[in-house]
């Protein structure tokens, strides 16, 4: 093995046999894309072909007149891998803009979750009380269940889910992360 200090900076590859443990970070990319057939496949296919992870994915048309959609992808990787993902996304002809929300101090990330909890008695009361603390809305109720609607940063939803689990969590549905920048300017 080389002992040169620079060698430690080199990214992993087929030839870097050890694949030393690198710190992987979550990152959220917001993409503005041309809303045309197959555009989602181009983005997802890029991630699959190059072996990048997708932690969550949301997509919807955001400007009908300009035929543009916004895709929000949460991925995971070492810093140089995240740089490479950004550069690869920018190469896609149908992608108009790529924004690394996680690296932007003005980036805001939110997620919506629908959480079904089943229980009676003290557990049911406790579930309702936790829901109030998290400012979740109850959108359906039966004698033995609630459906909560909750928005927030992904971490907040994770905490809520963990608290609900012992109280009778039945089902969870999450939208995946959405993002926007604080301030007056658009993407």
């Amino acid at each position, binding site marked *: 093995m080389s002992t040169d200090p620079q060698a430690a900076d080199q990214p992993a590859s087929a030839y870097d046999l050890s694949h030393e443990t690198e710190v992987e970070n979550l990152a959220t990319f917001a993409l503005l894309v041309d809303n045309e057939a197959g555009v989602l496949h181009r983005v997802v296919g890029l991630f699959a072909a190059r072996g990048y992870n997708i932690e969550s994915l949301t997509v919807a048309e955001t400007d009908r007149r300009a035929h543009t959609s916004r895709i929000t992808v949460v991925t995971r990787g070492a810093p*140089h891998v995240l740089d490479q993902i950004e550069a690869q996304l920018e*190469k896609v*002809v149908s992608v108009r803009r790529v924004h690394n929300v996680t690296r932007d101090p003005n980036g805001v990330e939110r997620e919506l979750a629908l959480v079904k909890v089943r229980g009676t008695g003290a557990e049911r009361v406790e579930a309702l009380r936790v829901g109030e603390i998290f400012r979740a809305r109850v959108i359906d109720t039966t004698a033995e269940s609630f459906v909560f609607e909750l928005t927030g940063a992904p971490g907040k939803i994770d905490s809520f889910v963990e608290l609900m689990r012992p109280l009778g969590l039945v089902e969870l549905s999450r939208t995946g992360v959405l993002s926007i920048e604080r301030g007056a300017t658009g993407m």
Partner: protein
Amino acid sequence: MPSQKTLTPTNTTATQEMTGAEMVVRALVDQGVEVMFGYPGGAVLPIYDALFQDNAAHGDRLRHILVRHEQGAAHAAEGYARSTGRPGVVLVTSGPGATNAITGIVDALMDSIPMVVLTGQVPTHLIGTDAFQEADTVGITRACTKHNYLVKDVRDLPRIIHEAFHIATSGRPGPVLIDIPKDVQFAKGTYAGPGEVVHAHAYNPRTKGDPAKIAEAVRLIANAKRPIFYTGGGVINAGPAASERLREFAALTGAPVTSTLMGLGAFPAADPAWLGMLGMHGTFEANHAMHDCDVMICVGARFDDRVTGRLDAFSPGSKKIHIDIDASSINKNIRVDVGIVGDAGSVLDDMVAAWKAGGHTANREALGDWWRSIDHWRARQCLRYGHSDSVIKPQYAIERLYALTRDRDVYITTEVGQHQMWAAQFYRFQEPNRWMTSGGLGTMGYGLPAAVGVQLAHPDSLVIDIAGEASVQMTMQEISTAVQYRLPIKIFILNNEWMGMVRQWQELLHGQRYSHSYSESLPDFVKLAEAYGAVGIRADTPAELDAKIIEMIDSPHPVIFDCRVEKNENCLPMIPSGKAHNEMILPEEGDDLGAVIDEAGRRLV
């Protein structure tokens, strides 16, 4: 914001009513296409009909070359593009027509070859019904094109074709595919010329390098004691002017120049500053200079694994400058100190200007030491091989081919394998666009159809496919195309009866267990040539080789040359798998190469 057209309109009064099929032909003519390669079928018949009528009305202003297999069409288009700098155009039918073309499309993607592929598709109302010869062509090719389109409305067709040419030829070039359902080919609409359409995509690649980074790079180079240029196919793609500028800048800096397989010819092999190709089968001097340099100037290359060898020991002491038109190539495999996104030609222009404006001069004293090191490496004569009076050595065959063709107007294509590496080592290129080979994808069967494309673009030049007997059989049928169009291509087969590179790796890495790498049954290539209507020549001994090569060159017909060479020759020097540039194996050490490669190296490709 949609980008505006940049191409100059060839006809300002182009707007008129016509069918989709007529639009295709018209758009190709307006894009300046003179030759296309294709194969008809049910789903493209309207386009072939429009082509027939256009040829009848306007002479052969748009020539169609009928290949024998769609893969041949794609490789021929690549050869045409690589040797001219213009986009190659392919026209094939739906289903198998499209799938057969895919190897050539991926090849063009990997080697950044501008190509526009038109595929027929079943009528729109049948898409998704598993109709006859239906394939999800845009789905299949999304991952292997720079961009692709399914045309669902004839009104979009002119815009899409013109945009496709723009995308294929600008930025980092690549293949763009347009899938056209049969009903869209029949539908009538209004044609618009290249200057009249508005592009739908915000595609606008950056070609001009960042001046601050260019200034930083020039400062680094001016202070270098052991600089080296490592250049690639990006210099060729940037046009002949980029090669001129590379030569000028190399002379100003006094730095040696090495190149990837794809970049051969950008810098003249006759120049004393030329070190030969680098990488796995590159020269000892090029690889050692890369390892020991203090400033590396990478121009239009991408730190491919065949070039770098073991990454954690790649040129450990150097500052690295990387010029590439593709931002994703920078810091992909190797972290660099100065990354400049831009066209190789434009950035080299700016660097030469900055060098002159800054009054920089090369450090002649330090360079003197550097060149003495290089001369020491050169003295190892890494390309020497054992001569024989009885058997033709493959290296000798290429040396003689070069000696007998060097003063001619010659273009070389290759297949993939040992012969390809020997061609890269022993054939000396002085100009860009003269060397067509499958680098990234490594496609056996590339060279013969590529030669067809090159010969069409350069009808009076000598076009030679340096081939192996295994590779050439993958697309052998295209010799029939060469005969049909009277293209006097020369297929120079180094016939050792083995898949030579596979045999070499099995010898070195798999205990000499030659699993399925020997051709137990080969055609008689001389008779095969004659069966196709071409000329067959065989050479068995070194003594007769020159006369036979001259006979081949002098023939006005396509020739298949069966050059029977030493069967067990290994391609050396070689950086063994998992080793660094300064751990190269020279020919005299080649006998126990298997012992040099460790267990981890064996697992690599």
